[in-house]
């Protein structure tokens, strides 16, 4: 069972639809016990960083997330990925979950169209199990105005939009983050989600 954390953000049904399509059992939940008993956890999210952290704090989920992310496959998607970092500067300086070293700030190139919206190519930086079965010419769907600034170790794949945009990040253990929407990235995205679910061994 995969727990999709429901803290009132965005269109989380599309993540569930994708997992249903893959035949993977999942549940939308804000219940700590359900999250603790899940085989893997997904933290989705669309919206603003401070708002999302406030919601997670109010739901009392921050500690649960930090504990679970140390012992089972955990994936943040889009804003959910940004929340994995130490802090963000969206609107105001705001602490994140601190699961991956680094911070989140606005895409700096002011001559670019912002948001970075559309299909961009995945450029691999380090080996990662999420990339099993993917080719060298894979595109994924992005919609975001802020991006992560992180160490090379945490950067598994990036896309180029002005400069490098972290696309897949991780802590080297259980935590993964996708800046793009795997649930909206066609076959490539479904493969990445499938690879993630396979990490739990179920």
């Amino acid at each position: 069972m995969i727990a999709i954390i429901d803290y009132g953000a965005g269109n989380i049904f599309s993540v569930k639809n994708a997992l249903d399509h893959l035949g993977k059992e999942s549940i939308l939940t804000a219940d700590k016990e359900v999250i603790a008993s899940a085989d893997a956890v997904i933290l989705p999210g669309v919206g603003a960083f401070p708002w999302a952290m406030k919601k997670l704090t109010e739901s009392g989920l921050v500690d649960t997330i930090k504990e679970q992310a140390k012992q089972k496959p955990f994936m943040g998607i889009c804003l959910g990925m940004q929340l994995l970092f130490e802090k963000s500067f969206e609107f105001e300086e705001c602490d994140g979950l601190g699961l991956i070293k680094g911070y989140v700030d606005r895409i700096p190139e002011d001559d670019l169209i912002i948001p970075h919206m559309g299909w961009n190519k995945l450029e691999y930086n380090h080996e990662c199990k999420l990339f099993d079965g993917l080719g060298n010419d894979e595109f994924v769907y992005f919609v975001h105005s802020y991006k992560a600034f992180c160490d090379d170790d945490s950067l598994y794949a990036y896309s180029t939009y002005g400069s490098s945009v972290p696309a897949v990040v991780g802590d080297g253990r259980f935590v993964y983050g996708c800046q793009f929407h795997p649930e909206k990235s066609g076959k490539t995205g479904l493969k990445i989600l499938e690879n993630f679910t396979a990490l739990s061994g179920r």
Partner: protein
Amino acid sequence: MLAKRIIPCLDVRDGKVVKGVNFQGIKEVGDPVECAAEYDKQGADEIVFYDITASHEGRGVILDVVRETAKKVFVPLTVGGGIKTVDDIRNTLRAGADKVSVNSQAVQNPQLIKDGADIFGSQCICVGIDAKAIGTNKWTVYINGGRIDMGIDLIDWVKQIEQLGAGEICLNSIDTDGVRGGFDIPMLKAVVNAVKIPVIASGGAGKLGDFADAFLQTDCSAALAASLFHFKELTVGQVKDDCRSKGIIVR
């Protein structure tokens, strides 16, 4: 670098895909969920449902179509047609759409763009525009499916909607729509140069090379077509192969 997007559009009435010629003799030609799944298979980068349901009661049906499609198709979905209020936007997004497209309603009530962008984010507010030339490099904006000239200058309008927070523009040329002689390059160029948000070319695609022409001659981000794909004259895959062979980045 972002890939140029190829977007098939499905006209939907009362939950069925329809095709009409010059607004007459509209006939049902298929199931929108199946059509969307087929386009997905062909490599569509996004799918647009344009709801032409006239009655208020029929409005719920498009949401069912979106809900069902979102279970099978894992690329972004956009819904246009008949979206008048913030509640309409919310309901459409909740049903599984990633974006809404507002057209006549936005011309009559520009605040809808701002409210939608403020609440849901610019990325899910696309503004559709029907425009027609009134001279060299001058166009005005029409509403109600190209029937009423609002006398608004196209370039003024696109700058205004960008200011209001629109995330994208879908630009349909009434002059080239249905003529099948290619997209309206001068109009596209003028709009792309006036704004920094992505512009989708619409209206006029009649043959394979028309898509690549739009990408090579303007900085538009995407190109949309309906009948051409619907009647299987071309597949999305063929269009992409043609673009790729001309050095255009596509998925």
